């Protein structure tokens, strides 16, 4: 057996193993008990596949033989650079910034898929058959959209781009742009048969990248998780399509598994937010005139953090509704310390988690787990919403839109119809908030003006510290 034959046999076997390990790993990741081992199983698959693909060196095409050494050196440098940068940035990123980091890595994958397509299209003098050519074009289009779209999503979540960017006739512009880019791509495939001028091919990629930007810019921050999940599915599809062009079954299987899993995940996330995917993409938060918001009666009543803490110490049941603001203030550890004080005093404490608390479904659970809050006092919205009316105190920390009663009553509100936590039904509501600003969706919250609501202004961490001190001094003085 020649070296070339042996190399390709090892490569094929490694890809088969990788495909199995990816699917098995994802399966393990879909249950909380086995999840942690799942990523390691999938990681092993990746390691096997990448190591085996070094053997490509022995089976390069005739034309590429003279460039083999240079190409291999370039590949090693690119691998090491990409790997070490991503490894370090992934280790360093704060748990609160996880969603945008996922967006960034996802965009890179989309870019890699588009790059594969570009190499195929720029490859001089090679004739691809019609079907692979069309698939290359479509994969490149999706990959490039995913790249620029994910970058915008990352920049928005990371606070590098603020607000949304909308113009009149946005959808018409986007639609025209998409059709033009797709048309150009099909021209390259069907009429030019892959031998279009370089400038035209470049124009196609630039068009796809710009469309990704146009598509993502108008989408509000609150919808970003759904968008990231959608781009994740996009990248999967792009990888699967380019895998077909490269005749690589590992890419085809992994890409298509992620494409369909990602699509389903997108639908589940959108459902958890009571939004449809087309709603997210085509008609955006606030797009339907937020001027119509009704007058809100009443006023915001501030209260001292210590007083609020003491009040909770003498309550019998307290429900906590945490939001992204809690995580930003890094107050989850102090909050849990306060919760333990309450529990020692015999208060029943529960956490109520809205499906989109944090920035993504499940994000808040991750953040609370980080602070060591045990699972059995954390409840999903459906399980705890009936209990608020029995609660003496509901305390909202850094959450806003997920507790806004306007979602139930105000039809003109952009968040109308979104399921919310029924904190307003508790006897007493405390809202811990930095200032008087609006929520992520830009909607005023009438909960803050309700008769049974008091505002505790301040940084969540400092507020928690004052509450802890107040309760401690109380119990200390009681001896």
């Amino acid at each position: 057996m020649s070296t070339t034959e042996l190399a390709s046999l090892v490569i094929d076997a490694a890809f088969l193993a990788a495909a199995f390990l990816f699917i098995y790993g994802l399966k393990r990741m879909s249950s909380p008990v086995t999840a942690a081992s799942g990523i390691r199983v999938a990681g092993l698959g990746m390691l096997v596949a990448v190591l085996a693909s070094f053997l490509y060196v022995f089976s390069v095409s005739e034309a590429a033989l003279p460039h083999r050494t240079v190409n291999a050196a370039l590949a090693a440098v690119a691998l090491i650079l990409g790997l070490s940068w991503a490894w370090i940035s992934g280790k360093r990123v704060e748990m609160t910034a996880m969603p945008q980091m996922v967006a960034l890595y996802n965009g890179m994958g989309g870019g890699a898929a588009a790059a594969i397509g570009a190499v195929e299209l720029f490859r001089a003098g090679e004739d691809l058959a019609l079907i692979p050519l069309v698939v290359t074009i479509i994969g490149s289009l999706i990959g490039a959209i995913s790249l620029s779209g994910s970058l915008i999503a990352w920049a928005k979540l990371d606070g590098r781009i603020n607000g949304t960017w909308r113009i009149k006739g946005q959808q018409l512009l986007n639609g025209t742009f998409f059709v033009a880019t797709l048309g150009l791509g099909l021209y390259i495939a069907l009429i030019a048969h892959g031998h279009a001028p370089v400038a035209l091919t470049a124009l196609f990629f630039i068009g796809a990248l710009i469309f990704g930007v146009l598509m993502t810019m108008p989408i509000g921050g609150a919808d970003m998780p759904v968008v990231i999940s959608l781009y994740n599915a996009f990248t999967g599809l792009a990888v699967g399509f380019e895998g077909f062009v490269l005749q690589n079954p590992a890419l085809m299987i992994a890409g298509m598994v992620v494409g369909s899993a990602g699509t389903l995940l997108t639908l589940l996330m959108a459902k958890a937010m009571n939004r449809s995917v087309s709603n997210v993409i085509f008609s955006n938060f606030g797009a339907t005139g937020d001027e119509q918001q009704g007058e809100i009666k009443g006023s915001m009543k501030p209260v001292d953090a210590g007083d609020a803490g003491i009040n909770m110490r003498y309550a019998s049941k307290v429900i906590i509704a945490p939001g992204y603001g809690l995580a930003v203030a890094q107050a989850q550890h102090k909050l849990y310390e306060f919760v333990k004080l309450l529990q020692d005093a015999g208060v029943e404490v529960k956490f109520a988690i809205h499906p989109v608390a944090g920035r993504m479904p499940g994000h808040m659970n991750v953040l609370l787990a980080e602070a060591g809050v045990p699972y059995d006092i954390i409840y999903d919205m459906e399980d705890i919403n009936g209990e608020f009316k029995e609660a003496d105190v509901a305390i909202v920390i850094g959450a806003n839109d997920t507790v806004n009663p306007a979602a139930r009553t105000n039809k003109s509100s952009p968040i109308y119809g979104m399921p919310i936590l029924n904190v307003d039904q508790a006897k007493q509501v405390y809202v811990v908030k930095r200032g008087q600003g609006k929520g992520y969706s830009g909607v005023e919250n009438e909960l803050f003006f309700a008769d049974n609501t008091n505002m505790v202004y301040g940084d969540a961490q400092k507020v928690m510290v004052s509450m802890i001190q107040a309760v401690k001094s109380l119990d200390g003085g009681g001896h």
Partner: protein
Amino acid sequence: MLTGFIALYIFMLAAFTGYEIIGRVPSILHTPLMSGSNFVHGIVVVGALFALLNATSITEQVIGFFGVLLGAGNAAGGYVVTERMLQMFKSSDKKKA
């Protein structure tokens, strides 16, 4: 050669597999799973390696280089981030037990 219908069979079965895996997942795992599937499509780095190793012109080498760079970032970053997220589930499970 994986042409025509064989490719379609692979795509169909893979798509069905992905759908079945995610089917009944509790919402607390949505974020880690999105991150995990984000890691899995990092396999694109293997395709980019193939493209770069077979490059015959400067243009192809430059694009291939960035393809490998981006793909490696997708794979490595996706792994680290997912591992960190899932690590927390493990530790909190232990505490409860």
